[in-house]
């Protein structure tokens, strides 16, 4: 896990009060999308608007990764013609977007959630099933840097 120095200190010094899991939203089909409904446990910690914005951006990024269009067809055809050996040297479009998502989650944690005593876990570490939000106890807020 690539945590910043301040997040690590947060984890070591703080005690975890609880964890909240935001589930997948399958209403739009099988694409990777998380529910944007604001969990009640976070009401005292973070602004509803801010949270929904984070989740919406995350959903948009996953939609970009899974987009079926000209570019993905081209990638598929090229790969098929080389018997998929091209993936030994090239990164797939999905992997590129996943890296983007990892950077986004890290940035959100550093800027917004760590100062509030929260930690978002990148969904890929939970098999793209849930967004895990760790809630640290209040006493940790002062010591986080």
């Amino acid at each position: 896990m690539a945590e910043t120095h301040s997040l690590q200190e947060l984890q070591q010094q703080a005690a975890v009060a609880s964890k909240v899991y935001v589930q997948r939203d399958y209403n739009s089909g099988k694409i990777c999308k998380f529910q944007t409904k604001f969990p009640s446990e976070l009401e005292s910690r973070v602004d509803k608007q801010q949270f929904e914005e984070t989740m919406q951006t995350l959903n948009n990024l996953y939609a970009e990764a899974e987009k079926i269009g000209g570019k993905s067809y081209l990638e598929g055809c090229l790969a098929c013609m080389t018997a998929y050996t091209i993936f030994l040297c090239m990164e797939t479009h999905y992997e590129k977007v996943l890296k983007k998502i990892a950077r986004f989650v890290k940035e959100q944690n550093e800027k917004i959630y760590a100062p509030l005593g929260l930690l978002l876990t990148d969904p890929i570490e939970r098999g793209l099933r849930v967004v895990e939000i760790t809630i640290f106890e209040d006493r940790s807020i002062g010591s986080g840097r």
Partner: protein
Amino acid sequence: MSAVMMTRKVRKWEKLPGKNTFCCDGRVMMARQKGVFYLTLFLIVGTCSLFFAFECPYLAIHLSPAIPVFAILLFFFVMAMLLRTSFSDPGVLPRALPEEATFIEMEIEATNGNVPAGQRPPPRIRNVQINGQIVKLKYCYTCKIFRPPRASHCSICDNCVDRFDHHCPWVGNCVGKRNYRYFYLFTLSLSLLTIYIFTFNIVHVVMRSVNSGFVKTLQDTPGTVLEVLVCFFTLWSVVGLTGFHTYLISLNQTTNEDIKGSWSGKNRVQNPYSHKNIINNCCEVLCGPAYPSVLDRRGLMRDDLSVPTSAAEPATNSNPVPQTTKTTAPLIPNEHTPDDAKPSMADAAIAHAEKRSPSPREDKLPTLPKSSPTPTKVPPLASPETDAEASIIAKDKAL
């Protein structure tokens, strides 16, 4: 007193639950039984070798040198697709960590309310609506998750696989979301290769017989007889399989759904995943994005081997290995200490960052019954498959 802690770095694949075997330090992932896969390899390589040895020299001279060249290209494509199908992660879903499992159990309890003792609890099902159709998500007792749509648990590999098609012993792996297109291309190219070899065997025998006579031809090239036999039987099965999967792809169905009759049309239930257009369905299945593996097989994690003497070792915390290792861990004599010795959630989360594990690699052993007590205070509802009775009994014991 304190235990002596030895920390070593291990790759995550060494700690993954499930009955897979890993090779090349986690790069290759297969099922346990590989015997039939070796047979497949032997048949393909053997038949092609005979073809290159007996037919190709004659045909290259008397017909065209393009024949062996095309055969070689086709052979390499078939092998590449076979190895890609066999060695890649089919789309295995990682199991829920203990906190997540607890969270889901609490949600289920809240939904179901209080069930009087002795009564069967309602089945764990979550309803979602996809494209206007109600789809039921089932709960997997082994993986402790609600399976995403189209996912299914493979009992041979002991994993939940996304868009599970079937477990294929011929390729020695499950066929799921990530490797379905390679599997299809493998069957398609193998059909072409079989037809190709069969046709040119016949052509070769006919051409030689015209010159030398039929019996002498067979004596000169004994390999031909063998090839024709193998190709004849392979043809019917592989071509039939390719046809079947072409049909499934055009309808955007999986073998699993077809066998269960999920979208057979009774009760006006229709396939919500189909685009109602054959071209769109084929494009989605064969040319869709290349999904990455969500199993981090080659990531590093710390494995703390504790040579234990104390009972309060906070080792039963949220590591990627679920409760199954508890029953098989020989190093911790106090594994069955009562729940008050087990850590609180706080310890669990902090230790999670360091990913401790109580025992060395035990997961490759046949997984013992999953009804071992969970490390948290939730009543152990981890019954294999859907044994509601066992869960009631377990609930009563824990309360």
